[in-house]
């Protein structure tokens, strides 16, 4: 439904059909955080350089700051809030904790979502493939070594679990 410069959109977010009243100027990032109240997705650079706002849109990982909210009408979205099952963390989340792959944590949801998109497509990535895939996610605290190791160990864990 469209009413000039505002509209109602409906998207499936982590399996739940969600209706949002948005202004057409909004990004998907703003709609998620300020309208749907899902603040797990973080705002970083707003220019598509840092990856903090990564979400999976119709099966591909995108920077939600560079998606207009209006584009998400009818879309399938996955955000960091959809990764854990209740109290059970996703193996990527567990491994980020095990490896202490974060300090301030602002970049972490973006890394988790981007890494999930990688493992959904390629369950057995090489270190080089992980590094290239995550080149659009910036961390300014830890460096990347522990993050890469966490993704490698999560991949191994996912292969042996039924998840």
């Amino acid at each position: 439904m469209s009413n000039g410069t505002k509209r109602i959109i409906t998207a499936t977010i982590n399996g739940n059909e969600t209706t949002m009243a948005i202004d057409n100027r909004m990004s998907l990032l703003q709609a998620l955080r300020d309208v749907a109240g899902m603040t797990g997705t973080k705002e970083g650079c707003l220019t598509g350089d840092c990856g903090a706002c990564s979400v999976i849109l119709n099966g591909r990982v995108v920077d939600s700051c560079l998606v207009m909210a209006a584009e998400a009408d009818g879309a399938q979205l996955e955000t960091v809030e959809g990764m854990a099952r209740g109290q059970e963390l996703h193996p990527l989340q567990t491994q980020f904790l095990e490896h202490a792959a974060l300090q301030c944590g602002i970049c972490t949801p973006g890394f988790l979502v981007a890494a999930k998109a990688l493992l959904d497509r390629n369950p057995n990535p090489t270190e080089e493939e992980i590094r290239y895939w995550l080149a659009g996610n910036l961390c300014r605290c830890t460096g990347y070594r522990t993050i890469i190791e966490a993704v490698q160990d999560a991949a191994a864990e996912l292969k042996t679990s039924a998840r």
Partner: protein
Amino acid sequence: MKPLEFHAPTTLDEAIGLLAAGGQDVGILGGGTDLIIQYRAGRRAFGHMLDVKKIPELNVLSYDDATGLRLGAAVCCDAFTEYAPALKHYPGLVEGAELIGSTQIQSRATVGGNVCNGSPAADTICSLIVLGATCVVAGPGGTREVAAKDFMTGPGQTVLQPGELLVELRVPPRPARSADAYLRFIPRNEMDIAVAGAATTLTLAEDGTTVQDARVAIGAVGPTPILVEAAGAALVGRKLDAAALDAAAKASEAAANPISDVRGTAEFRRHLAGVLTRRTIEIAAHRIQQG
């Protein structure tokens, strides 16, 4: 920022109508990786945004041995670079598309948008030029075709007139014993804009060593990408020995018309045009020999 109307037409006619009605007040949204940044920074101001991703004609992705590749202007780089016929027949074009931004950007950015943004540093335009690609443009007067080498007219400038949009890119099939290659220089491994770039296509004669046809284009070394006809001519009829490679590299250096800026000096860029020309020729020849 003034109020924004958002349109997502599902037919080309509807899109052309909206463009005609909106005039200069319409921003065309493909992947948005340039447009949304320009919009938010106030460098582009408009009251209407036209999302073209629901138009079937802009989502074509097909290959036919007789007619070649059809690449809709709204197909994202990730979809294009995983399309097996593209990688098989146009590896240089695919490697250019793979260089555009991060994984997240690849999910959104399009080859069509890379061309429409009009940057002389665009990573796909040199390949499209040497491959002899055609840009299919639709507007109020119907459709017209523009050769890729004529599409960009200056930094940020293209032949697109108000009311027109890019529908698809058509790339002719390759002759036997042909391959292409693209390289750019950046001071890091990922996530940067070309300091200089070069694309080459080669076709070898039946003897497998004599060059039958060659084209070289260089980017980010002038206000528009440059088709270096002298570089191709320096190779045709010759074996790819050191003298032939030197001649082609020298031709690209001579054709380059770079500026000095934060990414590099004019002198360095001119040098790079030669180096990248030489290397793309070697890669294309290697690809032909590998079959």
